């Protein structure tokens, strides 16, 4: 723990390890992004990529980088950061390592919204809007069902599992109602994909991150840390428990919803990123910023794998996050159990 003391009574407390993880993760994600922009059927050298990003470069390079590849990359980074951050908040609030938006039904709710648009008909803007609305509505439903008694960890997880089950049924029914072509498109969306994503997809997620990250999450991080010791302890230390919880839950649901609107329900990222972040920082607490950074780097890497792992054939990124994330988590949890007891 490093303490910075500034004149005027200001003091900041920093964990060196968390700081290193955050910085290294950011650098890694950026380096990966430069390489990724250069990769593809028309390869561009990293130096040329940097030249374009600095405002120069040849017209062809400029077009390919800023119009074709960069939007998808930025979408990946933003969606990854949003999901990592939201996952860290959910796990902290539920005091449960499995308390992720996938398990609690927020992601399924976003899928329901999108599927309704597929069945009723509508463009991709309507689909994104409906996905966000579905996620938010599910968040409200969760709060209405589990919130009366203070959104205790167990209750929220159990109610969430029930909600997920119901929504999975509804989603299956909606898929059978959709015309065949639309059902195929919907199935692709449900896997989670960054294919063909442009600035219009990236901007809402970036906006949500820009507002929610500092305003709600970083400002509330100390209170979230205390909430992990139990509601009573946190209240005894002066945390306005209900208010902090509603604000954090609302922000996390919003992030998941806009992320799902941009890229579909990308599975397992919100669950895996905070685990990996905590392993790296070895710090107790929600590890908000490291989780966001790890999420961004992970989704970017997964999307590169999805594009280039199988030659001549692109996979939806959700397939990669599902296989790798799920596998990593199973390995991690099996190892922890074996190691501890």
């Amino acid at each position, binding site marked *: 723990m490093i*303490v910075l*003391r500034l004149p005027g*009574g*200001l*003091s*900041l*407390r920093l964990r060196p390890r968390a700081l290193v993880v955050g910085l290294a993760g950011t650098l890694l994600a950026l380096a990966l992004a430069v390489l990724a922009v250069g990769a593809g059927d028309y390869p561009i050298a990293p130096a040329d990529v940097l030249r374009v990003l600095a405002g120069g470069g040849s017209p062809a390079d400029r077009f390919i980088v800023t119009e074709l590849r960069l939007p998808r990359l930025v979408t990946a980074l933003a969606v990854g950061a949003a999901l990592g951050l939201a996952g860290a908040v959910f796990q902290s609030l539920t*005091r449960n390592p499995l308390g992720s938006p996938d398990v609690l039904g927020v992601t399924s709710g976003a899928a329901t919204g999108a599927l309704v648009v597929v069945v009723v008909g509508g463009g991709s803007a309507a689909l994104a809007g409906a996905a966000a609305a579905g996620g938010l509505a599910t968040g409200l439903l969760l709060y209405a069902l589990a919130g009366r008694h203070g959104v205790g960890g167990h209750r929220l997880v159990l109610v969430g599992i029930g909600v997920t089950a119901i929504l999975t049924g509804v989603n299956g029914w909606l898929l059978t109602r959709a015309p065949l072509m639309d059902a195929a498109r919907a199935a692709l969306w449900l896997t989670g994909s960054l294919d063909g994503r442009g600035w219009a997809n990236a901007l809402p997620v970036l906006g949500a991150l820009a507002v929610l990250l500092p305003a709600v999450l970083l*400002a509330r991080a*100390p209170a979230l*840390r*205390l909430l*992990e*010791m*139990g*509601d*009573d*302890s946190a*209240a*005894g*230390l*002066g*945390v*306005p*428990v209900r208010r902090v919880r509603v604000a954090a839950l609302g922000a996390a649901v919003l992030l998941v919803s806009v992320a799902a609107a941009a890229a579909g329900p990308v599975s397992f990222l919100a669950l895996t990123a905070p685990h990996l972040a905590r392993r790296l920082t*070895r710090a*107790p*607490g929600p590890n908000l910023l490291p989780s966001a950074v790890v999420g961004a780097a992970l989704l970017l890497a997964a999307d590169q794998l999805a594009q280039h792992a199988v030659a001549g054939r692109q996979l939806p990124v959700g397939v990669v996050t599902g296989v790798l994330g799920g596998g990593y988590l199973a390995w991690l949890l099996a190892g922890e159990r074996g190691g501890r007891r």
Partner: protein
Amino acid sequence: MTGPDEKGTLMRPDTPRLVGDALTLGYDRRTVAEDLTVAVPDGSFTVIIGPNACGKSTLLRALARLLRPARGTVLLDGADIHRRPARQVARTLGLLPQSAVAPDGLTVAELVSRGRYPHQGLLRQWSREDERVVDQAMADTGVVELADRPVDELSGGQRQRVWIAMALAQQTPLLLLDEPTTYLDIAHQVEVLDLCARLHDEQGRTLVAVLHDLHQAARYATHLVAMRGGRVVAAGDPRRIVTTDLVEEVFGLPCRIIEDPETGTPLVLPAVRRSGTDGEPAPTVAGRC
């Protein structure tokens, strides 16, 4: 350790800082206590006792601002505790709840330093004062040598001392403890209660604890509150109020009371009731010896 703050001197001298006035308490539709009035004398070590489900923990939760009374008010320094901001209350009144969980891997020093939360801000995260108070709290509770150990590796007694250290770091003149000795063996129970007594005697803090053991309550309390069925049956100096009649009324337990040879406080001995005899309780001594 710096003592309690000076707010008390601003109050009318005859009104205690913490008062529960005509409280109706309950959860959802189940009412636990009605029209309950309790005053915590300033500078006392108040202990609340009573049989299971008598409402003693519920009362403590109300006094700690964790439970909003259905009727009546909890007054802290003369103002409704529920109308005051949580953080402001937390600078006057500390709490050791039953349900505290230490997150995995959190060290003792980190846990104790969390007690500084009500005194900190976004840009004032760790002042020299914070550091000094945390060091002092760890010294007062004898956990300095545990500072870098993870809390989840400690024994029950050590852990409880660490949680008390966290509450001390909060620097509150009032400290509420909900069953601080539950799940501890007898030696650790005494250790924790001795620590509480020291905080009361040497630092002048007002303590309120819920305890199960009547003998320990009578030994350590300066002010005893005996509850049954959501009512206060008796309140006052344990040497004065602990009688066979009271124990019979509160716990339904026939007993004898002798003087604790160590402290001179009342020592309650349950009467022998063997099955097979005609059920007549052993002779009891009326009143305190």
